[in-house]
């Protein structure tokens, strides 16, 4: 098998250049590539376009990169919960492209799967449809949407092996598997790097063919946005 292990996040992201297009996995703060984000804060790379379902919160996730003004543009489905984001947006310092969540997921999948365009009903009749081709199939109207690809995809998994095979945990899976397929270079950070051959081939979520670099991350905070519990 091909060995894709790199030392750490710093080594993994060191060649990400200014103005790169990135994809970052995660839904809210769940399943985000915490180590890669920390490393990008250190490299100070600027002008990034970040394709990510959300934009983090003020002091965590992509929010940290917004504070340091490293992000030029966000491509997301929902960007609430972030005051600095709102400030930059209203001040015209940040571009935002809002995309329906299912369309975002499918455009990323299409990017990885070599499908340049597809039709979806989401957004038909709304401002999302502006400038897009509309076509009717079986009496229903659909919009044509195009694929999304990235220079680098940064994904976070639970377990991974040296061949880049990944297993996610719980709902931390979310956008990570599709994004892993759509990066020219895909960097996977995992909570645990396990020996080759210990992941069951039948239970791998992301085949290693999509992953170019993998490392074991450190000190995961896994911040919870809404801690809701049932009292005993």
């Amino acid at each position, binding site marked *: 098998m091909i060995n894709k292990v790199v030392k750490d996040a710093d080594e993994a992201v060191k060649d990400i250049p200014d103005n790169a297009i990135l994809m970052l996995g995660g*839904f*809210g*703060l*769940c*399943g985000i590539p915490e180590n890669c984000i920390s490393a990008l804060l250190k490299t100070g790379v600027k002008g990034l376009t970040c394709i990510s*379902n959300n934009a983090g919160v003020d002091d965590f996730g992509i929010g940290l990169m917004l504070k340091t003004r490293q992000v030029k543009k966000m491509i*997301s*489905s*929902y*960007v*609430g919960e972030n005051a600095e984001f*709102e400030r930059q*947006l*209203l001040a015209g310092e940040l571009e*935002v492209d*809002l995309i*329906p*969540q*299912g*369309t*975002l*997921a*499918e455009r*990323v*999948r299409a990017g990885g799967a070599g499908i340049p365009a597809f039709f*979806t*009903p*989401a*957004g*038909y*009749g*709304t*401002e*999302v449809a502006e400038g897009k081709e509309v076509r009717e199939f079986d009496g229903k109207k659909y919009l044509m949407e195009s694929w999304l690809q990235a220079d680098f995809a940064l994904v976070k998994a*639970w377990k991974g092996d040296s061949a880049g095979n990944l297993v*996610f*945990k*719980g*709902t*931390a*899976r*979310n*956008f*990570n*598997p*599709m994004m892993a397929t759509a990066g020219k270079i895909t960097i996977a950070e995992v909570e645990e790097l396990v020996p080759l051959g210990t992941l069951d081939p039948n239970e791998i*979520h992301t085949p290693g063919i999509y992953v170019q670099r993998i490392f074991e991350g450190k000190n995961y905070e*896994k*911040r*919870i*946005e*809404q*801690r*809701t*519990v*049932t*009292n*005993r």
Partner: protein
Amino acid sequence: MLDKIGIAKRIAQEVRGGWYINLGIGIPTLVANYIPDNIDVVLQSENGLLGIGPFPYDEDVDADLINAGKQTVSMMPGSVLFNSAESFAMIRGGHVDLTILGAMEVSENGDIANWKIPGKMVKGMGGAMDLVASAENIIVAMQHCSKSGASKLLKSCSLPITGIKCVKKIVTDMAVLDILPEGGFRLLERAPGVSVEDIKAATEGKLIVEGDIPEMTIN
């Protein structure tokens, strides 16, 4: 007039056994609490979970297990985890039987507006546009009027819309209504203590009142 819990309870009565259901954030999420135990349904969370369980006990909280509202949740026997593309494949492919979501405005032809208010910071549509464009059966949970008393059941939406001709039924604090294929809000039930006249006054769009309108039964 119903409170939020009343709206949730009334919507719960619409649920049938064997359905897969997607619940939006807010009142729709509350609906889960009032579905009778003898009705087997499965709740879908668009961030990648089928079979949403109750909030976890404190010691079972897992940051890697949340619902689409980013609340920590639990799983049930038979639950399934999947990625976001698969999740919206389920939604777009018509596999989800019922979608319940909130709205800022609904028009008499079934258009819904719930994602954007001009002049306010736009946070995004999340999965709402996919849900409303895909679901066969959409119930909206909403207040009949704004805080200033303006009707939110309109001839046509004034806010940017989320989807067109998609809402099938509406449960508000004042009434249950469905939307006729040819357009128009058909009044089905009144909330306790609310008259047909009250509802007429609170509905800007075309209201259709046929025969006696019963009062809702809510436990």
